[in-house]
Structures are given as structure tokens and as C-alpha cells.
């Protein structure tokens, strides 16, 4: 409950935030804090400077483009997405966000925080990987946009490195998505999860089985192809108290099939 000493700043603009982030390699952006503050409480990791992004309203917007492209500000909360009329253009987003943790956490936790922490048990990394989201990263030297495959680098590690900030996530149009998970109890920690998108070709992303979401592209959404595709990547998931490597790999396969089926049924 008792974090180490830390410095705190609440910048008034993204530019200011980037300046402070660039100022110290121990500086970390503080989004919803629903992961970072817990890790600080455990003193498992201790930033030197927290740059509080709450209050940067230009990072909160949710916009729907004419072509159906959805742009979600990194600081939009799960609750914002669940309640957003624009976000309904990609229904799976609200559906998955409403499954994350609990009311309190959904009120505070952010889309950007979820993908940037990239805890293997998080819901959004596999979802974003499946639906082909693109991530816009700002730094003092400008802006760049990367795909999920380049964004997720490892546990708690993403392309948004020191001195950088994830500002928004861009999601192409599409409705034929699915998500499946096995959690501890009705709404506890994910043991394994999978997201699928069948807009054009099928993409299935598996969560909880590696440091980053594992994407497979089955030739079709029928069970056999999906299972074959998942077996094809030769998963070697980490084992923990809830699942052996073998069981987790098995769950990944079953959940991939279910997510793909859900996506297919929505056509």
C-alpha cells in the first residue's frame, strides 16, 4: 500500500507531458493507474517521476470517421468506450471493455493504459491485435503510427518507449468480431483469452499465452482450420498456479475456435 517516493507532475498539454517525459528516463506516464499504481504499491517497479495524463482532454476523444474508421484517444476510459455511440461502430470494443475488471476500474482505467501495460492477462492487447488497430505514438521529435505487431514488445513493454506517449488508437471499420475468455470465476483474472476478426480474412489473436498477443490467420473460420492454425504456431505458454503450459495451450485453441465462431456468426 505504500509506494516509494515519487515526483508528480500534471501537465496542461501533450507537448508539456512530452517535455517532462523526455526530461528523465525514470519518468512514466500515469494514465488510469489501475495497473501502475498497484505495481508501485508492491514496490515491484518504481518510477522516479509520474506524468499524470488525466486532464489532457485532447487524449480522451472518440471519433468516427466517414469511412467508419474509429479513433480512440489513449485516455478514454473503458466506461467512456462502453457508453460511446461512436464506439458502437465496432461493437466488440464495448462488449470487451464491459468485461474488464469492475465498475470502479472501468471508470478510471483507460484504453491506452491497458495496451501500454500489456499485462499478459489484459483483454485489449489480443483484441487490438485481432482487429488490426494502429497505434499513434508521439514524442518531441514528432509522431509515428505502428501496427499491433510492432507495438507489443513484451510484458509491460511496448513501442511507446521512454520519452514517448501513446496518443490514440485507430481502428478500421468492421463488425464481424468475437472474443472469448476463461476467467477465474465469473469476472476474475483471465486464464486465457482470444479475440477474432473476420473482416476480409480471419485473424485470431491469443492472449495470456506469451509476452505479446499471438496472431494466427486461419484459412477459414471452421473449427478444424482454426485449431490447425493455432497448433501451427506451436504455443509454449508460461505456466502458473491457474494453468500448466499444456492446459493454457489447450484453452487457447478452444477459445480461438469460440472467438472465430462468434465472429463468423455475426456475418
Amino acid at each position: 500500500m505504500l509506494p516509494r517516493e515519487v515526483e508528480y507532475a500534471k501537465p496542461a498539454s501533450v507537448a508539456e507531458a512530452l517535455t517532462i517525459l523526455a526530461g528523465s528516463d525514470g519518468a512514466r506516464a500515469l494514465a488510469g493507474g489501475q495497473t501502475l499504481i498497484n505495481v508501485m504499491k508492491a514496490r515491484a517497479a518504481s518510477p522516479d517521476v509520474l506524468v499524470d495524463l488525466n486532464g489532457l482532454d485532447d487524449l480522451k476523444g472518440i471519433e468516427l470517421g466517414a469511412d467508419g474508421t474509429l479513433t480512440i484517444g489513449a485516455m478514454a476510459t473503458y466506461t467512456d468506450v462502453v457508453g460511446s455511440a461512436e464506439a458502437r461502430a465496432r461493437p466488440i470494443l464495448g462488449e470487451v471493455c464491459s468485461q474488464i475488471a469492475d465498475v470502479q476500474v472501468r471508470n478510471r482505467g483507460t484504453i491506452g493504459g491497458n495496451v501500454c501495460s500489456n499485462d499478459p492477462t489484459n483483454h485489449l492487447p489480443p483484441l487490438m491485435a485481432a482487429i488490426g488497430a494502429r497505434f499513434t505514438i508521439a514524442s518531441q521529435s514528432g509522431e509515428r503510427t505502428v501496427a499491433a505487431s510492432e507495438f507489443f514488445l513484451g510484458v509491460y513493454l511496448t513501442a511507446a518507449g521512454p520519452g514517448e506517449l501513446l496518443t490514440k488508437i485507430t481502428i478500421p471499420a468492421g463488425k464481424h468480431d468475437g472474443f472469448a475468455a476463461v476467467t477465474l470465476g465469473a469476472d476474475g483474472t483471465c486464464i486465457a483469452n482470444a479475440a477474432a476478426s473476420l473482416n476480409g480474412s480471419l485473424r485470431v489473436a491469443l492472449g495470456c499465452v506469451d509476452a505479446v498477443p499471438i496472431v494466427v490467420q486461419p484459412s477459414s473460420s471452421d473449427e478444424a482450420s482454426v485449431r490447425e492454425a493455432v497448433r501451427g504456431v506451436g504455443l509454449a505458454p508460461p505456466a502458473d498456479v491457474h494453468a500448466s503450459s499444456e492446459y493454457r495451450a489447450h484453452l487457447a485453441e478452444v477459445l480461438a475456435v469460440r472467438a472465430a465462431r462468434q465472429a463468423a456468426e455475426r456475418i
Partner: protein
Amino acid sequence: MGAVASSQTVTVTVNGVEYEREVEARKLLIHFVRDDLDLTGSHIGCDTGNCGACSLIVNGQLLKSCMLLAVQADGATIETVEGLAEDGELAALQQSFSDHHALQCGYCTPGMLMSATALLRANPSPSDDEIKKALQGNICRCTGYWNIFEAVKAASA
């Protein structure tokens, strides 16, 4: 430019009363409310943000105050369990908790009441599932929740 500092003056309005304190940046809001403001009704039941005993309504939003720094609440309007009753008269929800034996040790009750209060404000007549979902972030080890569902249901319109 937002100054970078390891402590700052924080001003909050809690249950209608304004407080101003100098606070270390690392201090969690729940510690600030309990230790600095002496409002000990809100509790701490875990150290990972799971249990919800520290739930408060901050600027109208239900939050877990163990995952928020006190400095982040600067300028906020905060509601705690101490503010629910009016002149010693239990609020309908508090009375309903008592009527339905929705509390035993009473340790989770303040957080539970804040979650239920937030629910009924947003949704005065929730379904059974909506009640369960509204309470999913609050752990109770005494009651098994059944009587809590009944209490919230009875207090809803």
C-alpha cells in the same frame, strides 16, 4: 507548466467540507482520507485494488481510492460513507442494509454502500444482474452477497 514535485498542497471537498493539506505525491487517496482527514469509515481490505472497501465517489464517479494518488484528487469533490446519512437519519440504502442483514462485520459495508449508491443514482430500478454487476468490485467475506442484493433491490425504485 505543471511543476514536478514530490509533495504539494491538496484541496478537496469531502461530504461538503473543504480540506487543505500538504501531501506527499506518493500518498494514496485512501491513506489521505483515513490518516490525514481522519475519515476512517472507508477501509482497506487488500493491496491490489480488488476488494473495493476503499470505494469513494470522486467528482460523481465511483472509484477505488487505493488506486488514486491524493495529489490526483486536488480540487475534487469527494463523497464517503460518512456523508450518506442526514442528521443522524440513515439513508434509505443504509436502512435497507440493516433491515436485510446485508452486513455482518461491517468492514466492507462502507465501500459496498458507495457502490450501491452510485448504482441507484445512475439506475434507480436496476435488474438483478445489474445489481450484481454494480457490486462486482466489492468483496464481502461474511454475507455471501445474497442479503446485499436483497437490500439494494429493496432500496431501488
